[in-house]
């Protein structure tokens, strides 16, 4: 047992070191926007990886993909907080055999070919507008703003990136979220009883 207790710690430290190195490189390159004071670069990297890690726990309706071989499209709408972190995180990953493609948009509509949309709000489309636009569409909306939460809304609790899930909204969009994922959420807005059986 003694052998093990510090193992996760070692792994965590390694990961932290790696992420720090990446962030430092980004700042030096000046490729990223100037980070706001409240933005934690480590948390941003974790959120970037969470974006695609959600995918296996969500079932999209049959019509969500145009063709059986269509890629899995991850859209970042508005201000992109991730930059190359996200590209690096998804590179080589796939969802149900579909390669993951990152698409960055200023605004999104229900016709956009996105399966997951991270909504950050832009000058042309605010977050509530975007959410409204995607209402009922087979898109998993992810936000990082408690004021205008999507289906999944990131939050930081106790130095850890956690999330709240609005299962009712997921049901409206025709998505099924695995209970395993729900069990990890800080808070779940349950779907209506009539939707549970679907």
């Amino acid at each position, binding site marked *: 047992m003694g052998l093990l207790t510090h193992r996760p710690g070692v792994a965590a430290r390694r990961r932290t070191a790696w992420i720090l190195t990446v962030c430092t490189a980004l700042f030096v390159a000046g490729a990223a926007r100037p980070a706001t004071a409240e933005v934690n670069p480590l948390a941003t990297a974790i959120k970037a990886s969470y974006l695609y*890690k959600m995918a296996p726990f969500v079932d999209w309706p049959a019509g969500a993909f145009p063709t059986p071989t269509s890629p899995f499209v991850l859209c970042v709408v508005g201000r992109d907080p991730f930059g190359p972190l996200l590209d690096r995180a998804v590179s080589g990953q796939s969802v*149900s055999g579909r390669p993951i493609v990152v698409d960055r948009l200023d605004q999104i509509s229900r016709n956009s070919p996105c399966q997951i949309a991270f909504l950050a709000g832009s000058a042309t489309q605010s977050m509530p507008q975007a959410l409204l636009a995607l209402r009922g569409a087979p898109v998993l909306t992810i936000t990082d703003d408690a004021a205008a939460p999507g289906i999944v809304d990131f939050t930081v609790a106790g130095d850890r990136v956690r999330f709240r899930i609005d299962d009712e909204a997921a049901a409206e969009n025709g998505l099924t979220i695995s209970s395993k994922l729900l069990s990890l959420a800080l808070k779940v807005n349950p779907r209506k009883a009539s939707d549970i059986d679907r």
Partner: protein
Amino acid sequence: MTVSGLRDRLRPALIALGVLVLLAASLAVAAYNEHQNRLQATQAAQTQAQVLADTVTAALSFSDNGALREYVDALRANPELDAVGVYDSDGRLAAGYTRSDLADRLSNVLTPRGAPDRIIVFAPVVQNGQRLGMVYVRDRIEPITRRLSRYVGPSLLVLMAMMMFAVSTLDALALRRANQDLQTQMVERERAEAALRQSQKMEAIGRLTGGIAHDFNNMLAIIIGSLELLLKRHADADPKLLRFVHHAMEGAKRAAALTQRLLAFSRLQPLNPTPSDITRTVTDMTDLLRRTLGEAVAVETVLVGGLWRAHIDLPQLEIAIINLAINARDAMPEGGKLTIETGNAYLDRTYVQGEEDLQPGQYVMIAITDTGTGIAPELLSQVFEPFFTTKPAGKGTGLGLSQVQGFIKQSGGHLRIYSEVGVGTTVKLYLPRALAAADRPPASMSRSAAPARRETTVLVVEDEAGVRDFAVEALIELGFDTVAADGGRAALDLLDAHPEISVILSDVVMPEMNGRMFVEQALKRRPDLEVVFMTGYTRNAIVHNGVLDPGTHLVTKPFTVAQLGAEIDAVLGVR
């Protein structure tokens, strides 16, 4: 070998085979159980790993180490789970525990070191086809002692079955041995019973013939005596008449010889054994035998030097040898060779064991061998029976061998017969060795020629009138004075009344008082009396085993006047 014998022989092998099969079967069952057990444990571990893999997907995916730890720790409740590890997609350990004393590390699980009592299984962590990591579960198999203890029951059963097999085998063997013993005993018993029956038969025949011979002897005594007196008193009669008398005499004498042989068989004839030189007897007889047996039969003698003397009645032995020689000749109608051998023999305890009335010790052996037809084995036991003969009717009396047998037995000897059909027959006579050094001089055979008047009175005691009258007549003929009584009491009275009596001629078997008792009483009154017994039947007080008491004089009925005269002369010391 019989079928049952084969079965008996094979039974132990079959049972051993059965035991082996049982043992092999139980071992196979144990091995199968062990395998099943391991398979089951593996499946259980696999299921456990699968359940864990399905549970930890989200926690692993989102690095919720707290949740992971809870899932993993939940498995600690199962004491058989030795070690559990959850690894992410990069192969890094996310959560786990181990309580093994094995000095391994969960980080090395992908190359686990050999541990035969551990089951190691892996299960991929997959969500919607997405491989998120891996779960490692190591299961401890039950310790060998506990697994073995589970086989104690069946093992005991197998052991007991094998013991039962063994016991039943031993039982069967013991039963077989007991059965064999029983059968052997039955055979021995049958043999003993047959021997007993045979001896009882011989005994009965002996009594019968002895009794008949006794009565016949009394009658023959009368006939012969009367005929002799007739011849003596009417010697000048018509020669034709005298020839008839001679014929009658001849027949009566042959009848007397026949009864003598019957008595020999019934071992009741009076014997007078003396230390005898057998070598001389055989040598003397050789010439007689050559003449008797004829040209066709060669007679050969093989005589050893230093042969012991035998204690035997010599005239009877000569008769026995002649009987055997005649039998041998009759067995060799085409001619052949008769060999007479002598030798010293010692019959030991083991040899004597099966024989009736035979003492171990030193014997003088006479073997008479012919090259004749031999006797079939089934007839060998019968040849000593009286009137048993293989000769055509009228050629043999069937009394020859029985006479020999009776005589030898009565003499305390032994007879053995060996025969092989087509080869010949050997009869061996074993005569008791004479241990007394002194040789008694042979009894005088001379008799006084002239029947002169004697100054001697003889008291005749005989219950049978015919015999008594003949004896009285014969004594008168011989020149004696006589006084006669029909019984012991009357005779004692006469003895008191006639002090001139100096010789007693007494019968032995008499109703009220037997001859010996009478003589004892008489000798008490008159110790100077000389005594001669006459008898036809000698199983009585004066004879022990047919051998006369030393010093006793005896005439055997039927007797002739001459024989009577010789015996009385002998007691009177007349030469």
